[in-house]
């Protein structure tokens, strides 16, 4: 397989986040030039990336102010959500679609890589700290109508 351009992986992932926010939620996420600051209450989603090749793996981690998560998922729902469970499940589906969109482009670009997604894990609370060491990653920040998001994209073994 040809050498993999990590910048392409990161850029494709970032484009997928913005595209899915607009397509599924009808919301715009604006990239921030410098790191933002998340508020107290957060919603975070993690999906793992796996392949058949040992060592080639990764993950997408999306941390959002709870207000932003609510705004995005309300956009997906076309209106207010029924309850907190819907907020978390819809947030999981949001990152699932982001990951899917990114990996479709990446897998088509690098045939044979065949990344697949693990089911999302969703975390919510105040003062949440999520660490995912051992994976080389890039972090980008975004602002939405009701808060800030931190998108941490990691690919290892490529």
């Amino acid at each position, binding site marked *: 397989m040809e050498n993999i351009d990590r910048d392409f992986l990161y850029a494709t992932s970032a484009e997928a986040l913005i595209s899915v926010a607009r397509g*599924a939620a009808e919301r715009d996420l604006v990239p921030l030039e410098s790191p933002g600051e998340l508020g107290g209450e957060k919603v975070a989603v993690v999906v793992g990336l796996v392949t058949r090749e040992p060592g080639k793996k990764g993950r997408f981690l999306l941390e959002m102010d709870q207000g932003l998560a609510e705004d995005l998922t309300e956009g*997906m729902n076309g209106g207010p959500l029924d309850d907190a469970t819907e907020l978390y499940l819809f947030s999981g*589906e949001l990152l699932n679609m982001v990951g*899917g969109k990114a990996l479709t482009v990446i*897998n*088509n670009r690098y045939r044979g890589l065949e990344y697949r997604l693990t089911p999302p894990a969703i975390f919510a609370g105040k003062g949440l700290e999520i660490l995912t060491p051992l994976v080389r990653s890039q972090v980008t920040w975004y602002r939405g109508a009701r808060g800030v998001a931190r998108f941490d994209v990691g690919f290892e073994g490529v």
Partner: protein
Amino acid sequence: MRVLVIDDSPFIFKAVKKALEGMEGVVVVGNAPNGQVGLDMVAEHHPDVVTLDVTMPVMDGIATAEILASRHPEVKVLMLSAMGDEDLMARAKALGVRRFLTKPFEAADLRQALFSVLRDR
């Protein structure tokens, strides 16, 4: 047209129901959270079409499509997935899945895809 949604995402089930709301002659007969439950519901509800997610717990979409082709060849399958790379689509096609729609999808695209797959022989 009787439609069964096999997908573990409540968002997708809502989105499919909303897209088909008010359409004459179209009924969403239920939602299965995985392929195993989906196969039971196909036997119970006799849908014309299933929308089938790929990544699901217990039994994924590819395994489900394979069993559907064998046990219920009369049921048409529209695969809905966040992923749409060529290798995945080729695997699905080899199992008889004729239509594939990536998420997120527009309601109009879903409706068109469902009617299109229903017309397939």
